[in-house]
C-alpha cells in the first residue's frame, strides 16, 4: 500500500482531510452522547424542581453564590485561553500554544479547588446526602433531594473537568515536543471542543442550581 507523505495519516484513510473530518465528526457525536448523559440528570432535576419549587429554592439558598459566580468567571476565562491555544496551534506558534495550555490547566485546577472548598462547606453544614445529612424542618427529605442532584450534577461536571485537565496535560507534553502545527493540530482542536462543552454544561448548571429562586431568599 502506498505510504502517505505524512506520518500522522492512518492506513485506512485516503487523505488527511478525510481523517480530520472523521475525527471532528466523531468528537461532535461524542459530545451529543454527553448532552444526553447530562440530559438525563437535567430532566430529573427539572421534574423535581417542577414538583417541589419552594423546597428546591430553599435548598438552593444554601449554595454560595459568590464562590459559584467566581467559578463561572474562572471557567469562562479558561474557555478563552483554550480557544487561544487552538488558535496558536493553527498558526504553528508552539510557544504561545504551550503558554495557553498551561493557563487553561491552571484555571481548570482553580475551578476544581474552589469547588472543593464549596464541598467542604457543605460537609461542615451537614448538607451532604449519604454522609450525615441533617436538616431541620418537615421538608428535610426534599431538601436532601435537591442536594443529591446538586452533588451529582456538579460532581459529574467536576469529573469531566478532571478528565479535561488530564487530556490537556498530555497535550501540553506533546506540544512541548513540537508535535502540533498548522498541518496537524486535530488533537488540540478536539480537546478544545471538549473543554468548551464542559464549560457550557456549567453555564447551565450555574443558573439552574444557584440562581433560580434566589430572589425568594429571606422572604
Amino acid at each position, binding site marked *: 500500500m502506498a505510504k502517505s507523505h505524512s506520518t500522522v495519516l*492512518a492506513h485506512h484513510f485516503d487523505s488527511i482531510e478525510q481523517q480530520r473530518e472523521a475525527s471532528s465528526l466523531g468528537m461532535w457525536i461524542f459530545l451529543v*452522547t454527553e448532552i444526553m448523559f447530562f440530559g*438525563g440528570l437535567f430532566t430529573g432535576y427539572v421534574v423535581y424542581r417542577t414538583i417541589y419549587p419552594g423546597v428546591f429554592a430553599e435548598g438552593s439558598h444554601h449554595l454560595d453564590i459568590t464562590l459559584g459566580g467566581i467559578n463561572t468567571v474562572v471557567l469562562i476565562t479558561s474557555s478563552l485561553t483554550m480557544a487561544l491555544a487552538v488558535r496558536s496551534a493553527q498558526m504553528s506558534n508552539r510557544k504561545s500554544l504551550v503558554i495557553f495550555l498551561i493557563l487553561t490547566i491552571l484555571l481548570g485546577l482553580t475551578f476544581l479547588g474552589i469547588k472543593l472548598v464549596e464541598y467542604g462547606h457543605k460537609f461542615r453544614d451537614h448538607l451532604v446526602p449519604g454522609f450525615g445529612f441533617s436538616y431541620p424542618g418537615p421538608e428535610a427529605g426534599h431538601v*436532601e433531594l435537591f442536594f443529591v442532584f446538586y452533588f451529582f450534577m456538579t460532581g459529574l461536571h467536576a469529573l469531566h473537568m478532571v478528565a479535561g485537565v488530564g487530556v490537556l496535560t498530555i497535550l501540553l507534553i506533546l506540544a512541548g515536543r513540537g508535535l502540533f502545527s498548522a498541518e496537524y493540530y486535530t488533537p488540540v482542536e478536539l480537546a478544545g471542543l471538549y473543554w468548551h462543552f464542559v464549560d457550557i454544561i456549567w453555564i447551565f448548571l450555574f443558573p439552574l442550581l444557584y440562581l433560580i429562586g434566589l430572589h425568594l431568599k429571606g422572604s
Partner: protein
Amino acid sequence: MIVDRVEPRENYLNADYGIKSWLLTTDHKRIALLYLVSVTLFFFVGGVFAVLIRLELLTPQGDLVQAETYNKLFTMHGVTMIFFFLIPAIPAVLGNFLVPLMIGARDLAFPRLNLASWYFFILGGLIAIWAILAGGVDTGWTFYTPYSSSYSTTYVAVTILGIFLSGFSSIFTGLNFIVTIHRMRAPGLTWFRLPLFIWSLYATSVIIVLGTPVVAITLLLVAVERILRVGIFDPALGGDPLLFQHLFWFYSHPAVYIMVLPAMGVISELVATFSRKNIFGYRFVAFASVAIAVLGFLVWAHHMFVAGLSVYGAMIFSFLSYFVAVPSAIKVFNWTATLYKGSISYQTPMLYAFGFIGLFTIGGVTGLFLASLGIDVHVTDTYFVVAHFHYIMVGGTIMAYLGGLHYWWPKISGRMYPEGWAKLGALVIFIGFNLTFFPQFVLGYLGMPRRYYAYPDEFQVLNVMSSAGASILGVGYLLPMIYLIWSMRYGPRASSNPWPATGLEWRTPSPPPTENFKETPVVTWEPYEFRPREEMEVIGKLNINDESG
C-alpha cells in the same frame, strides 16, 4: 453454485496467528469474530436460564425452584439476553464485519475505538457473570425502583456496573458506524446506492448514540441511591419512582429498535438476493428505518400505562405509539412486494427471512393491541406481553441474525455451510419458536401473569406445550452452532460471490484480505442491480483475478 478449488491467498484469517494477533487486532473483521464468539457465549448463558424457567413452569407448583430463585432466573435471563446478546448481536457481529466491506472502505473510522468497544463489552459481561455467580439479581431486567434501589438484597449494583460498561461498547460501535458511513464511502457510492443494511445500521447507531447515555446515567442514579441510601426514586425518601421509569424507557423502548432495525436491514438484503430483484420502494424502506429511529423515541411511556401515569400523558403516548407501526408496515409490505414475480430460491437464509416476516408481523400487530390503552390495562404484566416481545426479539432479531450469519458465512469463513442441515435447522427453529411462544399469547389473554413461579392448574396444558416447544427450539439453536463450526474445517470452499449478490462485499475474495479491497472500488451502479446469475458470477471471479494479476 461456484466453488473455488484454489487455495486462498492471504486473507484476514491467515494473515497472522496467535492469541495476541487476535486480542490486539484492530481489523474490523477480526473484532467481528471476537464479538461473534462472545455473544454466542452469552446467548448460551441466557439460554440456560430460559431452560430453567421453562422447566419450572412445566408444573403448576414450585417444585424445581421457589419464588426467590425464580425471580433471579427471569432477571438474569433478561439481562444477559437483552444487554449482552440481542443489542450487540447484529450490529457488533454482522455490522462490524460488513460496514467497511459494504461501503468499500479499508476499516471503520476508528479501529482502536472498535477494539476498545469489545473490551468494554467483555469487561461488562464478566462483571455481570460475576454478579450471577455471586448470587444473582432479582429485580427483573427493568430494575424498577424503589425495589431495585432500596429493597432488593441481591447484587443489583454489580449488575448495573456490568450493564453500564457494556453501554460504552454500544456507544463506541454506534459512533464508529455513523462516522464511517458519513466519511468513508467509496467514490460513487451515494446515499441512495447504499445497501439497505447500511441504512438500517445507520438508524440503529443514531438510536444507540442518543439513547444509551440516558440509561447509563439512570442506572448510575439507581446505584448511587442504593449505595448511599439517599432518595432519588424512592417515594419514602422524597423521590418519584415513575421518574426512573420515564428515564429507563426513554432508552429501553428505542432499544427494541436497536435490536430489530438491523434485523430488518438483514432481511432487506436476503429478500433482494434470493428473489433476484431490486427491493420494491428502496427509498421508502431506507427512510422507514430513519422514521422508526425517530418515532421510537416518542412512545416510551406506553410501558407505564398502569403505573400511575397521568391520564393525558397516557393518551398522548398511546396515540404516538400507533405511528411506529406505519414505517414497520411499509417495510413488511415492500418485502412482500419484492417477492412478487421474483425468481425466488428457497435457500437457508431466505427461509429465515420468510420466518422473520411472518413472526415479526405477529409480534408487531400484537404490539398494536398493547399500544391501545384499554387492552393494555387488561393484558399488562401477563404472558401476552411476554409472547409479544419474544415474537419481536426472538422471532425477529434472532431469525434475522441467523439468516444473516448463514448468508455471509461464506464471506466470513471462506467456506459453505451444509445446506441440508441448515434448512433442517431453520425449520426446527421456526416450529420450536411458535410452539414455545404462541401458547403464551393465549395464556396471557386468559390472565396468567408473568414473573410467577407457580400458576393455577388450568394453565398447565398450555405451559407444557410452551416448554416442549422450548426444548425443540433449544435443539434448533444447537444445530447451526455445530454445523457452522464443522464447516469451518470441512465445508467446501466458497467463491467470492456464491449467491450471487450485488453488494460490494461480494466483489472481494472470500474471506477478504486484511485491507478488504486491493484497490478502492469505484461504484457506478445502482443498488440491487441484479443481472443473470452467470454474469454476476463472472463479475465476482473477475475481481479476484484482477487482484492476483
